[in-house]
């Protein structure tokens, strides 16, 4: 299975960590910023190696396997397939973007800021490439610490509370994840995800495991009603923090569903699908409504993100190819569009000193190009045809209608809400009487450099997403195929289980952990 090859994933994880070392010898914040920028670009160079990814297979590629703690069966096991490849790519893409966006907005503790950012990126790549459950958990929790620091040290006025809420909420959500991992080891005999994927577990066990994992993932996404950490964290974080939280970290939850939830506990996933679909539809509609009521630009984007991620999770739990493909492409797209929106909001903040809409009125006259970019990403945000989000949302909705007319009919208004809540701030910002008339600068070169690639990606993925779909297709097809072949089986088993569980209710849950030698 494993041929000797360049350990690209390890390299990607280690490079940002090693890149932190020279910081200690740097004095000026200018040098630090430039080094961070160069390194973030350098990080993309080995990323190009990932282009050797072989299309048309569902296998894990670039696999690295080193025994770690052999007594406990721990392995250092990395690898990517079509699902995780794009998450790694997204992280690599967002990395330089974050560095540029915090060029002027971070004023104090520049060194520490970039160290946190580097560690965060390293951990994120780890999450998306780990194939060993313990390793996965390690990276998963490692993400929290730098994020906490980003919010707590460089955030806005309400940063302390927001950071505390963020870390406690997400820690509480993922606390039980470790239990699930150990249970998988006991039941399935391994920590390795590929091995576990070939096992089949009892329905009861799956139910417990799924609930535990879903809790962790739903908090991370976040899904309604587990979202209340989000407005604070997104709103108070520094620009780079908001970008990375919404663009990459929100995807950890969705990725968790795709990597662990569906393959390891397929029957339970199907059993709980209606609940998750309901939650995601609630997210779409609820997020859309709430975004309309906000007057803080970042909170508008935050709640819109709730709605968009609702679409993603909806797509995942439709269990058909269209839905899941749409979800995955939407994960990537949402990263690009929401990241860009947060970036523009940050640029605006550097001009107006406020995120409040009433301070940024009527800018169309003064910064036309700037507002043009904002408008572009706004239209991409509500899935205008020809932009990237259209492809994703369209596939998800097609999948929704394929599964059930009512699911589709309930999700479609989300598209209208998006237009309403995104055009409202655009209207105020671009048009009407300006609040302050002086001191506006249009786009500066640094902003051009950061936004143009994003805009090009929006158009490329909107008009020619075929390459993307080709890469993700085999892995997802494999996953859906596995789910469907089980679906036929479980239909029978399902009824049996329900009957037996009706007969003997108590204490069966314990057997899930211990029994079945």
């Amino acid at each position, binding site marked *: 299975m494993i041929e000797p090859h360049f350990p690209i994933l390890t390299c990607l994880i280690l490079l940002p960590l090693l890149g932190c070392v020279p910081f200690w010898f740097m004095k000026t914040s200018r040098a630090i910023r430039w080094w961070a920028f160069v390194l973030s670009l350098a990080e993309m160079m080995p990323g190009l190696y990932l282009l050797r990814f072989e299309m048309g297979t569902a296998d894990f590629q670039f696999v690295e396997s080193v025994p770690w703690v052999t007594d406990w069966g721990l392995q250092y096991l990395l690898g990517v397939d079509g699902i995780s490849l794009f998450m790694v790519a997204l992280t690599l893409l967002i990395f330089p973007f974050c560095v540029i966006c915090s060029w002027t907005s971070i004023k104090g503790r520049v060194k520490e800021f970039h160290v946190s950012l580097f560690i965060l990126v390293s951990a994120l790549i780890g999450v998306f490439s780990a194939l060993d459950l313990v390793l996965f958990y390690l990276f998963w929790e490692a993400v929290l610490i730098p994020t906490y620091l980003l919010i707590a040290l460089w955030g806005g006025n309400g940063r302390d509370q927001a950071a505390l809420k963020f870390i406690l909420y997400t820690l509480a959500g993922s606390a039980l994840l470790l239990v699930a991992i150990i249970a998988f080891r006991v039941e399935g005999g391994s920590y390795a995800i590929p091995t576990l994927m070939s096992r089949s577990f009892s329905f009861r066990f799956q139910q417990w495991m799924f609930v535990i994992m879903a809790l962790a993932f739903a908090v991370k996404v976040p899904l309604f009603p587990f979202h209340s950490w989000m407005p604070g964290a997104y709103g108070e974080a520094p620009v780079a923090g908001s970008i990375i939280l919404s663009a990459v970290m929100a995807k950890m939850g969705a990725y968790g569903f795709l990597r662990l939830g569906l393959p390891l506990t397929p029957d339970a996933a199907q059993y709980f699908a209606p609940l998750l679909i309901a939650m995601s539809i609630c997210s779409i509609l609820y997020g859309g*409504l709430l975004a309309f009521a906000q007057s803080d630009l970042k909170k508008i984007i935050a709640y819109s993100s709730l709605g968009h991620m609702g679409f993603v999770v909806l797509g995942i739990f439709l269990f058909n190819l269209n839905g899941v*493909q749409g979800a995955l492409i939407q994960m990537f797209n949402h990263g690009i569009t929401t990241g860009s929106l947060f970036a523009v909001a940050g640029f605006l903040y550097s001009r107006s000193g406020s995120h409040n809409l009433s301070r940024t009125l009527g800018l169309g006259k003064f910064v036309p190009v700037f507002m043009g970019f904002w408008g572009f990403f706004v239209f991409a945000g509500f899935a205008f045809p020809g932009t990237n989000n259209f492809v994703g949302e369209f596939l998800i909705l097609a999948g929704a209608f394929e599964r059930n007319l009512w699911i589709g009919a309930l999700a479609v208004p989300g598209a*209208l809400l998006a237009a309403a809540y995104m055009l409202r701030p655009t209207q105020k910002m671009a048009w*009407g009487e300006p609040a302050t008339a002086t001191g506006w600068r249009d786009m500066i070169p640094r902003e051009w450099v950061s936004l143009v690639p994003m805009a090009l990606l929006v158009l490329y993925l909107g008009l020619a997403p075929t390459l993307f779909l080709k890469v993700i297709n085999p892995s997802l097809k494999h996953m859906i195929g596995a789910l469907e072949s089980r679906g036929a089986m479980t239909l029978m088993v399902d009824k049996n289980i329900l009957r037996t569980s009706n007969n003997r209710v108590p204490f069966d849950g314990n057997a899930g952990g211990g029994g079945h030698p």
Partner: protein
Amino acid sequence: MKTLLLLLILFPLGGAAINGVLGRHLPRRVVEIIACTALLCSLSMAATAIIKIGGESFNFVLFEWFRAGDLSVSMSIHFDALAAIMALMVTFVASIIHLYSVAFMRDDPDFVRYFCYLNLFTFSMLVIALADSLIFVYLGWEGVGFCSYALIGFWYGDPVKATAGKKAFIMTRLGDIGFGVAVALLFTWFGTFSITHINPQAATLSAGSATLLTLLILFAAMGKSAQLPLTTWLPDAMAGPTPVSALIHAATMVTAGVYLLMRLFPVIQQSPQGMLVIACVGAVTAFYASLAALAQRDIKRVLAYSTMSQVGYMILAVGAGDIVGGMFHLLSHAFFKALLFLGAGCVIQALSDEHDIFKMGNLHKYLPGVFWLMLVGALCLSAFPTLGGYFSKDRILLSTFIHPGASYKLFWALGMSAAFLTALYTFRMFFIAFPNRPDGRRSSEVKPIPRFMTLILIPLALFALADGLLNLPFGMGKRWLGHFLASVPGAVVDMNATTGMFLGMAILSASLSLLGIILAWFLYGRPKTVKEPNPHPVLSSAFYLDAAYRLLVVRPYQWAATLLWKKIDEKQLDQNLESFGVSFNAASVVMRLWTTGRLSTYLKAFLVGLVGFLALFVGRVTLW
């Protein structure tokens, strides 16, 4: 052939792209030449296409947009008689309006943005006209929506105008929900997005699903074509520059909804109930809007309501199963309405941005060219016998009348009354604004406008006058349009009516139109001072529909959003979480009482615990 159609679509896009990227660095004249040349080239392509291909249908795929499993979306073209006529009309009217805009926008510093959007609009409209894949149609559909949004709010310095743009976009997007669901259902049932594949299979639809689809498509059309109840954005859309109102909000975009219904007519045909609803929406809107137009003072709002009403006729035609009649009226309406709007644009500019018809007058004296052009437009709009709008409206009314079903007689009556009202409100506007009257404008109050602005309207006026020749019910070239459209699925060339009916209907609608004009003459026509009337509140506010929306939809929506945010999100979800944290805190306070640090406390606690444990143990053993 492929190249021809491809160029037809791509010329305006190319124009928009060049101007969008380079326009800021080009001289004004070059930008204008690029924009207009793109349109004229496109027009010549459309004309060549209709000559070379004629009414035959012709399909091809431009390229595959994306493929995901069994779902394939491609940018594909379906050229048939309907598309040919539509494309020719769109490019013709758009070309005239581009040329007119050169003069109209001569003092506006933002001409690059203007021409860029205008070209982009034409591109999107051509996509709607020609696309085969419904997803590709949707691209055009949203594209025209975006351009409309951007152009209504073109003078964004004024918040009212900017808000009108947003309102139009969101309201039409409400209709798009219907489009989206309909497309999804069509795909679920037929496995394809292609109109050419869906239409032949339409007969396999069950009655219920056909009705559902029809209603959804109708809902989409209601948004785009400003039919009841989604009407209120159109009068506000008049905030845009007048050529934009002419192109987007009169001649082309608002007819996109009707066009979509015609494109998918085989599906709609499967559902008599659905067609009944369509006819009802059309007839009621035609009547409603012509009533509202009676009380408007803004010349552009009069024309906006008349557009709504005329599009209502087209919808009625589809509901009565007569797409030839609908298309006929769509064509003649495009010509005379563009003419009227552009004429109104001349007036508005000459009078320094005056929209109120009561503050006009004496225009016969000072703007004679515009006077005659507007007279032609007004006569066509009121369906003056033998002029353009007459034959098409007559045909729609006749096909409604002979359609089986008692309710169609009612729709016919509504249509007839609307025809009378149309003549009345059109000539109310005309007689108040144009003829000489003592309190009218003085020559010093009329600014000269470029001659070109009136000259360019002459072709439009000729087309508007002679449009009836396209589908004369008698004589040479009888029903040319009908025969041309015969290959379109569902088209009926000859109506199943007796000669007596033909004549009766012709005479009746002719006399109604004349009656309206005469009544308008008596009310407003005699040269005298026109005193400004108190506008009838119910009519001028269009039956308070806007206020109703604000009261029933907008307010509750804002209220619900704020309520959810403040009361549910912050009070409930967040507060509960907060209190969870607080209770932890409280628990730790209680716990702290134990940790005194004194050994005696710990020993006491240990003793209590031990005793409890032993008691439990003993008790359990005894009980067992």
